[in-house]
């Protein structure tokens, strides 16, 4: 990754001087050669489709012009203007619900998986009999394909399903069995399975991170009289910060672009998850591909990409020092 190669350079090298720069390129010739295949593949699978997407966002591309595909009529910024200023634009219908839900969903899922993952990693970082088995068992939710997660939880959330059985018949938390797949509760019906499936991955990452923290720092802290909580705040968290930073970004991107679980939980992707279950990706898929408004759909995707780039920019500013630290 980009971050990695950057780290290879001396941190305080004056990059402005051309001669020095040329020498460094020469010295690292082998590294560049190794990168060539990756760059070619990245161009093929990332850059070309992206350029195509950008081009499509300037075309009037719908079912009648689809045959012409990239030669469809050029309409300039019309798709963008329609999205921003025309409230009748099909791609805009229900988009405000999707934006609200995606924001709630991405924040709760990201925080949820990070906390769950960190807690479990710290638990498993201790030495106890059966630790290997526990680690493997906890990875199970992550191994299950998201399609299966969606279908299984879809059954469990039913009004007469196992979740209501526990909540109402066993724990008596509610008087009546609530609907989870209809109405406002839908947001929980998608958040909880996503966290359930997502945290084991974070656990593995954090576990790897925890194991890089030298034991003697904790020993020294114990001698100095720091309690466990103090040790967590002053040693564990700061030492894990680079890992947390990378994972935070990865989780935010992943959750904003989340699609699978919602789409499989609600009627084979044909269904509409409702005003409280619709995410940006399910909404954009339905309102652009479902409506065959490919030009507007590409424009909407481009705008989302722009917003996400800004998120990445903010993230980079916040965590720059951790990422560049040696």
């Amino acid at each position, binding site marked *: 990754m980009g971050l990695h190669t950057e780290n290879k350079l001396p941190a305080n090298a004056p990059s402005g001087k051309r001669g020095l720069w040329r020498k460094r390129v020469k010295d690292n010739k082998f590294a560049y050669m190794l990168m060539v295949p990756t760059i070619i593949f990245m161009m093929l699978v990332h850059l070309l489709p992206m350029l195509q997407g950008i081009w499509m966002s300037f075309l009037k591309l719908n079912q*009648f012009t689809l045959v012409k595909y990239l030669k469809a009529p050029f309409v300039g910024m019309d798709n963008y203007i329609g999205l921003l200023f025309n409230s009748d634009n099909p791609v805009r219908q229900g988009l405000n619900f999707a934006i609200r839900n995606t924001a709630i969903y991405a924040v709760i899922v990201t925080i949820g998986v990070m906390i769950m993952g960190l807690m479990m990693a710290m638990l498993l970082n201790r030495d106890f009999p059966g630790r290997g088995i526990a680690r493997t068992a906890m990875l199970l939710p992550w191994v299950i394909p998201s399609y299966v997660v969606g279908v299984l939880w879809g059954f469990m959330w039913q009004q007469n399903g196992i979740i209501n059985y526990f909540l109402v018949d066993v724990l008596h938390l509610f008087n009546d069995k609530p*609907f989870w*797949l209809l109405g406002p509760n839908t947001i929980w019906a998608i958040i909880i399975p996503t966290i359930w499936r997502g945290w084991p991955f974070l656990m593995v990452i954090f576990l790897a991170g925890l194991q*890089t923290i030298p034991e003697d720092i904790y020993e020294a802290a114990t001698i100095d009289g720091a309690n466990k909580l103090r040790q967590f705040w002053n040693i564990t968290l700061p030492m894990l910060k680079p890992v947390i930073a990378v994972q935070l970004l990865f989780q935010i991107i992943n959750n904003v672009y989340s699609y699978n679980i919602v789409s499989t939980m609600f009627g084979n992707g*044909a269904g*509409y998850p409702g005003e409280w279950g619709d995410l940006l990706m399910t909404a954009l898929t339905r309102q652009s591909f*479902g409506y065959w408004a490919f030009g507007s759909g590409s424009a909407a995707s481009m705008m989302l990409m722009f917003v996400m780039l800004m998120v990445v920019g903010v993230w980079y500013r916040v965590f720059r020092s951790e990422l560049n*630290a040696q």
Partner: protein
Amino acid sequence: MKKTAVSISALLMAFSLAVSGCGGNNNSSNSSNNGGEQKGSNATTATAAPSTKPVTLNAWVMPNSPKPDADFLQTLDPYLKEHPNVTVKVTVLDWGSAWTKITTAATSGEGPDILQLGSTWVPAIASMGGIDKVTDKVADVGGAEAFLPAIWNTTSIAGDSEVYGIPWFVDARAIYYRTDVFKQAGVNTETAFKDWDSFKSALEAVNGQTVDGKKIAALGLPGKNDWNVVHNIFPWIWAAGGDVLSEDNKNVVFNEEKGLEGVMFYTGLANEGLVEKSSLEKNSSQIESDFGDGKSAVIISGPWLAKNFATPKANGGMDDKKAAKNFAVAPLPAGPGGQATFVGGSELTVFSGSKNKEATWEVIKYLTSDEAQKAYAQVSGQLPAKLSLLESPDLDANMKAFSEATKYGRTYPAIPQWGPTETALQKHFANVWDIVAGVKGKYSKESIKEELDSAASEVKAIINQ
């Protein structure tokens, strides 16, 4: 050391992306390669006869029957025996990804020769130029009069006389009811399904009957989490005297008084306690298995369910259920505007990029012959598309009921924009079910009207684009 952790996470990330990237389901299978079914592989390995030039035709079909590729080839077997120079290769598309594959094929010109299309897709693909006109060949297959009028309507684009597809098979929606429960409740099944009033009082009579120690709900119906949301609601709008669009397909009319009345009657059944509310979360196949399990006394479904009840459990059927021996089929009750039901089905089309159009047409001609229509209806559990066969005395009692239902069958307007229209309707009808379930405001004529109105304005934007 931190660097190690970061690079480990980067590696895992890359791995997880690679894993999650393999989510697509690609169900295409080539029967000549799998050779699972004896007859199938015989057919595909048929080689050239000296008399005519050998041709290989590619066919794209949907999973219409339990073994889609083998069943298709078995139906074609007599034709292939007679024409040893013809080889047919079958690719089975699943309904979920078929649309993307077909539009891609239409755009690139690279595709099959014989293409099955859902009846509502024909106008759209025709307007993209993906399939050929067959107007001048219609006489070959017996002319328009030979087919069920409702399905024939969908072979052209509305307002245009060109024909683009030949109906292959049809399905209709009708009522399945538990004969034992109706008997126990003392309901006369001769009159119960006559009109809306008799239907409702029959449901009230069977509601809560105890069968094998368990209370049974009168009606099972899927709410919004279903792929048939639109097909479930429109029969009631039609029966109330409403329609989707005006005659000229320029105005939206389903939200007018009559349409609203139909929606209110159908959703009212759920609102008045004749439906177990939890069924509003389920989809059609869950409702069908609930009916099989004796949770409801009445459901509305298509001919495939009767086939399912006749299929042994070992083959994935439900023949062991009590409902399988105690059910009958009846037409949907007449509303103030008469009787109506939704008729769907599939058509056979000639792909515009095909290089063997004549041979393709010959195969389509064979598939619409009486012999092949009968054979395919048998394996697929669907109804033949030809009137002479729909009226044939050979049909069993259940299929007769469905064939009866097709007589007042209705289809959606054959406009190229039907796909997007259905997507919009699906979304707003889903909100209607939220209102019925009591999780989105109060159920009233006003709140339903409001939702239908917003559906209408979205549909209007689509058809006028």
